[in-house]
């Protein structure tokens, strides 16, 4: 489901012209949500977001590259991808905004992942124990980038309940990477996953990593890019 083609923005309800301006908080965080098909990415983003669910389309080249000019649009070579995003405003200790982005499931959208993951605090990798290998591309990706991540084991109805330890072994995760069960539909459970991630990201900053990997390597803030 997406916006009906050709839907006019003029169909949006009119906005009051004299609306009060609420400026953006100075502090902005981002967490990205990855995982295989149907692992619960959309559910998790929506569960945590305070804004109504919206699906945004991006036009990409057939190679999955973002285009930076409408001149690049050729209907034979472009595809569109729908993206999940959400926002949660935090008020303690200062007003800040947490942006949540779901990564499109297929790893052929890696270039888009790069763009979404740049400057992120870390990532949540959702797993479905019925299809555990589906999350491998995502785990490899964050490991390679040096992005701190946690693995959230979704408890799908009818799925065999695997122990967290069994999932850790099957995914060959180092002990530093947190693995915890979660219900992506439950706010507190989803929040628990985010807290585990941020705690982990903090620990990664203070704990030396294995040679050849740097927590702040490619993820160094580089300012705004096109």
């Amino acid at each position, binding site marked *: 489901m997406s916006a009906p083609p050709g839907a006019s923005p003029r169909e949006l309800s009119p906005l009051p012209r004299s609306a009060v301006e*609420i400026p953006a908080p100075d502090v902005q965080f981002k967490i990205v949500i990855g995982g295989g098909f149907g692992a619960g990415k959309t559910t998790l983003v929506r569960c945590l977001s305070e804004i109504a669910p919206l699906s945004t389309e991006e036009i990409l080249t057939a190679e999955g590259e973002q285009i930076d000019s409408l001149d690049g649009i050729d209907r034979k070579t472009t595809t*569109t991808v729908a993206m999940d995003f959400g926002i949660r405003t935090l008020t303690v200790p200062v007003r800040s905004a947490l942006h949540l982005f779901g990564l*499109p499931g297929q790893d052929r959208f890696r270039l888009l992942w790069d763009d979404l993951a740049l400057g992120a605090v870390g990532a949540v990798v959702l797993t479905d124990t019925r299809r555990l290998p589906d999350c491998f591309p995502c785990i490899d990706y964050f490991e390679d980038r040096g992005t701190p991540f946690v693995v959230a084991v979704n408890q799908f109805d009818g799925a065999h309940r695997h122990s967290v330890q069994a999932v850790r072994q099957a995914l060959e995760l180092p002990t530093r990477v947190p693995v915890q069960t979660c219900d992506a539909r439950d706010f507190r459970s989803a929040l628990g996953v985010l807290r585990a991630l941020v705690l982990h990201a903090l620990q990664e900053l203070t704990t030396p990593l294995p040679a050849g990997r740097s927590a702040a390597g490619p993820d160094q803030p580089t300012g705004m890019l096109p």
Partner: protein
Amino acid sequence: MSGEPGAVWITQRDPEVLRPYMLTMGGTRPRHPMRYDTVLNATGRRSGALQPEAATTLDLCRQRARTVVEVAGLLRLPVLVTKIIASGLIDQGVLADPAERPPTDPHSPHNLRHLLDGLQALEVS
């Protein structure tokens, strides 16, 4: 592939490819670099006459600051087209130039502790 919103799907809708050109008044590239999560803040300055999509973008950002993806989702426009429209509004001075706003360092322990405290406060609320 599922039919869920947010699922990855691919379409080829010929007329849609042409529509963005009209919305951006022939602009094909945002002059101001923007990302998906770039925040668009209204400056409070008065605008001149605007195309409907640009007027709606400005109204949305006057209500409260919005990200590029959020505006794109609300306007049902591709992200690139939204960036071109927002870029025009920055040029007019009615949206703040995001480049003047320093990004939050995601690798600062101080910032991460703030985030942790904020999430904790949500849990008890």
